[in-house]
């Protein structure tokens, strides 16, 4: 789906979608806080325009916002995401530990977040090729007999 959207519009589109969903949630919730959804839509619109403008700038942030990062900018983004994930996992663990110690009822969101980050990490290891190194060539007995070093 993303290939049909111009790179510069991808991040603003994701931001717009998230903002509309958030605003819709406030609207569905009902009550006298319906105006929060309007504020959320206004904030989203401002953010989308700002992100689109940023995407046109000749900076690292502009390249990230415009989804046109080169290998270095992608590496920076990847490291930042890894840091964010580490902080999320650490914070979740601390929150879970504190919640257990206080016998609080709000322990489970921390556990869910911790499990998601943990399983996400394991899925990443599996998906990105750990344990795909193959068999070492010296495990082949044919090759060992043919090796000039071995004879």
């Amino acid at each position, binding site marked *: 789906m993303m290939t049909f959207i111009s790179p510069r519009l991808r991040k603003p589109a994701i931001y717009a979608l998230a903002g509309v969903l958030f605003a819709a949630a406030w609207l569905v919730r009902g009550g006298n806080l319906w105006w929060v959804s309007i504020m959320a839509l206004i904030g989203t619109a401002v953010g989308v325009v700002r992100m689109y403008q940023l995407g046109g700038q*000749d*900076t*690292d942030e502009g390249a990230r916002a415009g989804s046109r990062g080169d*290998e*270095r*900018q992608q590496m920076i983004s990847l490291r930042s995401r890894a840091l964010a994930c580490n902080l999320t996992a650490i914070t979740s663990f601390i929150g879970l530990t504190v919640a257990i110690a206080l016998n609080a009822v709000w322990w489970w969101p921390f556990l869910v977040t911790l499990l998601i980050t943990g399983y996400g990490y394991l899925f990443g290891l599996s998906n990105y090729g750990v344990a795909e190194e193959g068999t070492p060539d010296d495990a082949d007995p044919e090759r060992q007999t043919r090796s000039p070093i071995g004879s």
Partner: protein
Amino acid sequence: MRNRIREQRTQRGLSQAELAGALGVSRQTVISIESGRYLPSLPLAFTIARFFDLTVDKMFDPDDEEAGA
């Protein structure tokens, strides 16, 4: 790791932005590579070396730990 990108670029009268456009990377990345803050991937290193008609080992010197050209 020392590299000769800045030297080669200025010899050819190219700006960092022009080199970046030719290599298909951002100007900021060219600046980072020239200053030694970022080591390019092997494909990008080959692209850089080919652009300047040099070999990778002529373009990048692994024996010199000091960054920059």
